[in-house]
């Protein structure tokens, strides 16, 4: 704990800002039930009420409290994006490490398949698949996880390629260690820093991707509170000069900027330690 505090004190202002943003979002997401003044889908008043003491940020197109939905949105949008990123890493990381360790036809098979997947723009591919399987949250998570895992695969494979040729891996092989042991104990610890940084960046992409799909009405479906669809539902207010619909979009932007700052600092830190 003390070490973490010390590390934080040495961080630049941008990184502290990023960490603060991320911690706030996580807390809001966890304690959404206690923080929100009204329920997630509860209709509390008339439609499009302006900001007031009773409804701090007014109400939305169906008369639901905007602030409450914003708070629940943190849980839904960020939660789903986090889950998707984890899945993408599990998939891409595992196949990438396997390809680098086994080489040969496994590597060829995975790499060529990923080349093809990457040749199609992700948004278009996602739209096509969602047409076929229909829009549901499990489908959304799986499709985006598979599409984003291609980038994770490329990085994991490239990083692991450099480690596989090291002497200590050779020694472990000669000692007769199994494949799983070599990947887990020899390769993974050495490949971790770039993968952790990539996790932050990938999360941003996944988060923006899901928000874009939700904004198009093809992602997280109503009545679930979600930032992308909240912008879509209340967009008409903007033409009257009301900034309320911009708040969920700003919430998305703030989190991605925060994560980017932290990743930047982390990359700086890990590359600095090596030299």
């Amino acid at each position, binding site marked *: 704990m003390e070490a973490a505090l010390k590390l934080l004190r040495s961080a630049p202002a941008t990184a502290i800002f990023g960490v603060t943003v991320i911690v706030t979002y996580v807390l809001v997401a966890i304690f959404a039930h206690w923080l929100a003044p009204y329920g997630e889908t509860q209709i509390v008043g008339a439609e499009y009420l302006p900001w007031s003491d009773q409804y701090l940020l007014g109400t939305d197109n169906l008369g639901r409290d905007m602030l409450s939905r914003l708070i629940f949105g943190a849980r839904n949008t960020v939660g789903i994006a986090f889950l998707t990123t984890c899945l993408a890493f599990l998939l891409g990381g595992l196949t990438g490490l396997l390809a680098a360790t086994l080489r040969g036809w496994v590597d060829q098979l995975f790499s060529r398949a990923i*080349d*093809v997947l990457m*040749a*199609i*723009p992700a*948004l*278009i*591919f996602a*739209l*096509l*698949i*969602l*047409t*076929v*399987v*229909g829009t549901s949250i499990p489908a959304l998570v799986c499709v985006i996880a598979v599409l984003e895992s291609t980038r994770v695969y490329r990085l994991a494979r490239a990083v692991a390629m450099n480690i596989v040729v090291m002497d200590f891996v050779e020694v472990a092989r000669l000692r007769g260690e199994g494949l799983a042991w070599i990947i887990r104990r020899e390769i993974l610890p050495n490949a971790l820093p770039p993968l952790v940084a990539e996790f932050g960046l990938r999360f*941003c992409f996944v988060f*923006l991707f899901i*928000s*874009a799909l939700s*904004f*198009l*009405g*093809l992602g997280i479906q109503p009545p679930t509170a979600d930032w*992308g669809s909240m*912008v879509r539902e209340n*967009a008409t207010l*903007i*033409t*009257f*000069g009301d*900034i309320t*619909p*911009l708040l969920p*979009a*700003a919430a*998305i*932007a703030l989190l*991605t*900027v925060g994560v*980017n700052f932290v990743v930047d600092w982390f990359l700086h830190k890990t590359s600095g330690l090596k030299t």
Partner: protein
Amino acid sequence: MGKILVMVAQRLALGLLTLFIVSLIIFLSVELLPGDLAQEILGQGATPETVAVFRHQLGLDLPAHIRYLHWLGGMLQGDFGQSLANKRDIAELISGRLGNTLFLAGLAAVISVPLALTLGILAALYRNTFFDRAVNVFALSSVSFPEFFIAYVLILFLAVQLGWFPSISNIGPNTEFFERVYRSLLPALTLTLVVMAHMMRMTRAAIINLMASPYIEMARLKGLTPRRVILHHALPNALSPIINVVALNLAYLVVGVVVVEVVFVYPGLGQLMVDSVSKRDITVVQACSLIFAATYVLLNLTADVLSIVSNPRLMHAR
């Protein structure tokens, strides 16, 4: 020179192969539909006879590889089949919209490419000054923002508060050229902000990288002005990565257009695709996917070929 031709030919062959595989994937993804396309369209209430007749009409009773060849052959001749939702000819639906989308992407490219290159070169020229840092912060933050956020902020300020531009891009086939440019300027500006950052940072990085090499040092020691060193000595060698990143971003532009078109109700291909996805109009989505994917693949291919051709080291290969 022969070496370059071989490399370019290899890339072109690979590109064609990619296009073929992409079309196969787009076709097959619909084959994987749980259940049956005819059943899906007609609904649960249809009798087996109606479904059988409809399957025959759609040609679904033929084996998959024959249908694929029919489909691809039709696409290549401009026959995209019929929309499932309203039975209209897809080619008719698409033709005008494709033109609008390309116009919007083109307009965004015409604004963003020169602007990004100029800002990138200036940032490299005035490295580590306030200008450089401001440009960098701006670039980093504009990548982090969702497209619709940028779009609505522009609408709020430029359309609603200042009233300079219309917030909805109402474009018809008879709109005059300048009127058309004016009405699509706001979406084009949004796209510019989205793609500019990456191009600018790459230009800056490519030039700064080169500035450390000995021949630039030599040019500087000869007493040349910084402007001449950058424009005549550094830029030609930095051109290859820059051209590459420009082409990649143009490829991104064609796809990024989807969200922006929806925000501005711009009558383009992206909006048609999004509408069709929510209606689950599979044939239209297939056609749109193929057009978008083909444009994307072709632009990526152009990026590869151009970066081979513009590499001075390959031009004078011994």
